[in-house]
């Protein structure tokens, strides 16, 4: 008989805990931000002018960010996240880290761009866009 009561109690606890957890899960989705926000779409808008300036719609372009510039501080998680988002919005263009390609994207803070431009004088034609985005066209090896 005691066993039966233990079983009943345990079942009731499972039901209550699950019900409570499901309500908590619903409430916690508020922390994800507003349904009207779409950070990925914002990122898409940010890269749209750069995509239009590229002379091709598929191929490979280079990519550098603050983490590529020695001595510049950066948030590693943000830096990696922005790299992933850049590839996502640039699809079907493949982006690879570095500036070895003819066309390269710079996602650089002002400080990082300043440092980068000092060490790359004359190597690239630079097209600047809003939001600290740059397109570097290699003009010399």
């Amino acid at each position, binding site marked *: 008989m005691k066993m039966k009561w233990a079983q009943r109690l345990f079942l009731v606890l499972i039901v209550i805990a*699950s019900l409570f957890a499901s*309500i908590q899960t619903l409430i916690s989705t508020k922390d994800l931000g507003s349904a009207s926000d779409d950070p990925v*779409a914002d990122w898409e808008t940010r890269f749209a002018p750069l995509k239009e300036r590229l002379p091709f719609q598929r191929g490979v372009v280079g990519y550098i960010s603050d983490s590529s510039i020695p001595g510049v501080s950066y948030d590693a998680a943000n830096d990696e996240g922005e790299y992933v988002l850049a590839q996502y919005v640039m699809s079907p263009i493949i982006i690879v880290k570095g500036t070895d390609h003819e066309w390269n994207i710079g996602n650089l803070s002002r400080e990082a761009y300043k440092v980068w431009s000092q060490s790359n004088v004359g190597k690239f034609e630079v097209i600047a866009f809003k939001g600290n985005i740059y397109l570097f066209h290699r003009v010399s090896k």
Partner: protein
Amino acid sequence: MILLAVIFLLPILIGGMLVHLLWPERDFKILFFKAFLGIGLGLGLSSLLYFLYLFFFAGGRWFIFVQLGIFAILLTITIWKERKQAWPVLPRWNLTRTQTILSAVALIIFLISLASTVSYLLRRKQGDWDAWMMYNRAARFVYRDQANWLESFSRQMDPIFHADYPLLLAMNTASGWDTLGAETPRVPMIQSALFAVGVLGLAVGALASIKSTGQAALGAIILWGTPVLVNEGARELADVPLAFFMLATVVLIYFYVLHKKPALIALAGLSAGFAAWTKNEGGLFVVAVGVALTIAFFRQKPFRVLFFYALGLTSPFAITLYFKLFLAPPSDVLSSGAAKSLQQILDLSRHAEIIKFFWNQFIRFGSWTGISLAIGVFPILLTYFLLFRSPIQAQHRRAYIAGITILVVQALGDYAVYLITPYDLNWHLSYSGQRIVLQVFPLITFLILCASQAPETVFESNQIGANHAARH
């Protein structure tokens, strides 16, 4: 909006009719299970067909007519086969008090969690991190430059984007965009939600048929009351779809043990093949199922069972193998090289770290937030099993042998991958470990609830429900 509904309804109906034609069981609970099985198998089939279609007609933009053609053929065959059959009798809802209460709670939890899924999807329209990195990115590559879709698997792409990942989700997303003629986030959103609801429907249908209505309701309460399953189901990733195919495969093996219909093993093979087409871990699952069937049916015509398994498996697995061997870039997980891998295998501290991580997962996975429980769902399931365990009938035993063997082989395979991973072990475990456990969580829940007494047996002494539950 109508077209958006059609692009999902077509594969689901194709899947449902295919399942029904191969397994024309008409019991209402089985029909319920088959309807949900049809979601996953239909989406899997549609994804494979689109992959094949692209080889010949990339840029054609008329895939919907392929789907319509298949739908028409299957509908004709179904109507022809069903013409002399009586309509399935709707069950009489003579639920006991326990069944009514549990079903009502399960329905409430389902609705709350469905609201969570919708809320999550609306706030993360393009999915989460891995969706941008892999599945939706791959879909964009295919859709945006369909004529050159094979470039999606370029070896120039950074390995972190996993261009080698199987394509079930990406192909469905791309084909949906293709039909709509627009790249709307609604396609991956709906696909994600369908698999999330599908995995629940599979478990509920199977438990209702194998055990009782009360046990099915309890299954729903546990599964969709677990935040990690609800949240992951809305992230547009491949783990919940993989969990769907893993659960479907094992349930179909269970039904084979009960009904002895070879078509069920063929459907299990198809489902396992789609697991491989969903995620790399699915390839391991295919092997695990093969081993499990050999062991479980060792004394009962194993070759016959394996033949039907291979029959269902062949098409999706052959296409997956073709993709992995001839199109996809090499997997980064196996990139350490033999010497370094051996060194890592011999490093005892790595073993200790992996075991510790999974022990913590066992204790804390899916912890029910809000009530400050430091304990996860597995200790709760284990306690439930210890309190409610019931003797397993001899005729059901093979199903458990198969299910447990699959879990063991899958766990060993995942363990081996972590041992030889080229990434920092701590990072790799914390990045993917929880989702590895999530993939088998519905399956473990199903097996435990099948091996336990139903709630009716403890709340009702001599009512219909208790008798019904005791029958199993």
